């Protein structure tokens, strides 16, 4: 951990990201750890609050939108990824982080996740994965274990649990990491690396939900999560195996990264050789030449 101690005031500090609004998460909620790690990662990267955009989906995690400084957007349930992608493409120099829960991201918004990976938008997606719909009081998500009794499924859900990591890897991602809300130093390292990634960075944060998730508790995750050692993160097949095999332990850390694949913006022929950002280009465009072809 190396939070810069800045006495000149020119570098950002944790205090800069502080909000006067009190946190409203349950005691023991994993969101506290994630909230702290995000701020640390931004501070360590020397990004001032006004230099970043943090986009929140709707869910417990979304209540972070007014508990942290920085430019932020808190929009609709399931739709954070396309909003963040549109924002990023307009201003490529600004780090854009999107936060979403497993409920929205693997049900209502799952199509966006698929196409964001395929498009390789240069944004960070932080999955608050607590295995249920917390804010609506504990219904099953697509990642809840089959058969577990939840609010609105007193008999347990009949659907099969979606194998999220196998699914993500089937989409040929360029960055996949997994971390745990109880390990702030690891989350900080992972988020920093994700912010530096060229394309779409998928960060799966296994998150304790003390109120509704009785199957993957803080203690369970603490006991089972193991940071990968001596792992070649460019090895796609090995990474996929590590990600999907959680029988003994849960592999955490940056599991896969491929920096050879251009991101969406870099693939656009229309933007080749253009140094300005879309936000700089809003001026009347001379259509004289275009019009001439229509006589």
């Amino acid at each position: 951990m190396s939070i810069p101690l800045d006495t000149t005031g020119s570098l950002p500090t944790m205090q800069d990201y502080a909000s006067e609004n009190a946190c409203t998460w349950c005691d023991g909620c994993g969101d506290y750890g994630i909230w702290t790690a995000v701020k640390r990662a931004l501070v360590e990267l020397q990004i001032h609050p006004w230099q970043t955009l943090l986009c929140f989906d709707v869910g417990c995690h979304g209540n972070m939108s007014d508990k942290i400084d920085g430019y932020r957007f808190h929009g609709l349930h399931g739709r954070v990824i396309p909003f963040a992608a549109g924002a990023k493409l307009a201003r490529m120099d600004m780090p854009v982080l999107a936060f979403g829960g497993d409920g929205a991201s693997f049900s209502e918004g799952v199509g966006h996740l698929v196409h964001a990976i395929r498009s390789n938008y240069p944004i960070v997606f932080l999955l608050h994965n607590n295995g249920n719909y917390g804010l609506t009081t504990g219904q099953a998500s697509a990642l809840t274990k089959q058969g577990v009794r939840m609010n609105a499924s007193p008999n347990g859900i009949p659907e099969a649990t979606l194998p999220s990591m196998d699914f993500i890897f089937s989409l040929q991602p360029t960055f996949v990491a997994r971390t745990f809300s109880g390990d702030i130093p690891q989350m900080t390292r992972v988020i920093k690396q994700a912010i530096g990634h060229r394309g779409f960075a998928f960060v799966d944060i296994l998150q304790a939900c003390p109120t509704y998730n009785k199957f993957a508790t803080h203690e369970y995750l603490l006991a089972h999560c193991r940071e990968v050692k001596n792992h070649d993160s460019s090895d796609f097949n090995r990474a996929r195996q590590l990600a999907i095999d959680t029988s003994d332990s849960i592999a955490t850390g940056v599991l896969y990264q491929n920096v050879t694949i251009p991101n969406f913006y870099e693939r656009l022929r229309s933007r080749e050789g253009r140094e300005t950002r879309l936000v700089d280009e809003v001026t009347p465009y001379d259509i004289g030449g275009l019009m001439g072809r229509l006589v």
Partner: protein
Amino acid sequence: MSSVAVTITGAQGQGIDSVGGILARACKRSGRCVFAYREYMSLIKGGHSRYQIDIADRFIGSSVSQTDLLLTLNHHGFEHDLKHMRPGGIVLHDQEGWKFSSAQQAWIAERNLRVVAVPVHALLRDIGGTPLLRNVVLAAFAWSMFGEDRALLADMVKERYARKEDVLAANMRAIDAGIRAREEQVPDLTFALPPADARWKDRLLLSGSQAMGLGLVRAGMRAFFSYPMTPASPLLTVIADLQNETGILVKQAEDEITAAQMMSGAMFMGTRAATATSGGGFDLMTETLSMNAIAENPALFILAQRPGPGTGLPTWTAQGDLHMAIHCGHGEFARGVLAVSDANDAYSLMNDAFNTAETLQTPVIVLTDKHVAEGIFTQEPFAAAAPTLSRGLVTDPAALASLQSADRYDPTAATGVSPRWLPGSHAATYAGQADEHRGDGSVEESADNAGAQMDKRLRKMKAMKAALPEPVLYEVVSRELRVVSDDVPEVDILIVGWGSSKGAILDALLDVTQDSGLNTQDSIGFLHYSWLWPLKTDRFERLAKQARKIVLIEGNAQGQLGRLLRQETGIEITEKILKYDGRPFFRDELAAAIRAKL
């Protein structure tokens, strides 16, 4: 006025559109005003397709219901289009030896039609051309009937196929074959176009979608997000084809929700972006529209109407989504709704739409429809003067430095419009917030705050209404249409409408007033609405109160603008001409309907 209608018809996939486009442009370049109208079905090959070119010696912006010259590339034209022939018309076809039914023979006799079989297949055999060139042979045959210069038609074909040498050479042979066949086989067969006038030659000939694309580009739009849906997809194609030259970022999204969200994100960051769809796709976007309203984020939605409900008539036209545009999205909020009526509007209103969205920080919906999106208009070149982009942003460093986070959604803002500064600005930050919030975007559920913020956002309706123009009044004076300035004389007969029916209404009014049967004491005015919400009513009320008769003309079943006017003014328009069969108003039919109301 002198005008004719030439129609090319056949199966989809037979090149009806391409040859229609070539003929339309050739007619325009020869010095005529042209309006072209396409009909087709929601499939790629085999369905019936027609391309009607109305050609006149004065400005026209609509079609007639009857054709003077029909070129049919298969026998379906006999089934679909014979019944739309004007008496004395000419039918060219390539179905040699075709046996007309007795009913068709009787109709041909009754209408006094001249039916000419052109030996297209034999001509193509002689020049070694593929059957795909049938359209060009028939078009050249017709061009020869017009007595127009071969070189002009050849130029149009060259412009279209400039990059495909072999295709071009084959087309040239087909043109020669068609012209020669007419000259040698039926030298007496001619067809007179209206008198030429050089002023039309240098006008643009473009679709409403092309005009809208240019208007958006001109207004500084730098990103466009869309999911294909007729009749919005032509706009996506137009802008996509301009992307390399203009640098505009174009994204064909995975669904309409994505397109709307990406547009919202790009606008939030501070560029100008838009999205476009038709009714069904727009339904999917409305949650996002509502999100932008509470987050006070400018957003531009283009809604290209087609008949619903459901999938409806995918390739036909309607003005049926006005009420949806005004009422869509949950919650109560300010929005702007405007409708384009032709290529000129589609171009010139785009910057106004962006300016309104940005200065009022709220969603704006631009209504268009299949008729404008795919109609081909003769248009004066657009003015060179640069439009004024009003962005309503705080950008000055000193002003930015003095901002507080709570200024962003300050509920005390007199007009409801509080300061907006862009993410990335070196200033106090805020949360764009779709939950109810206080000034800095922090979630706030107190009763006092909820009321204050709702009032703040709704105050923008008043500010917007004050800034918007009243509807335009057209009057026919000395057989010419003119736009009447604000201090209007009274009109005896007031026609009210909006959107794409304007073209047919204006054309029909000229026809009606040139009709000797009309009581010449009556003055007729047409009040045309471009901005539909918030609804400006002063001018309407003034005119309506002294008019002897008011007639509402709309392309929907319920008279939706009429209902809005009654809601806002209490004035009910009882005389209505409504059309909701997927077809646009045809100017001859509309003229008859107007006459019947007088």
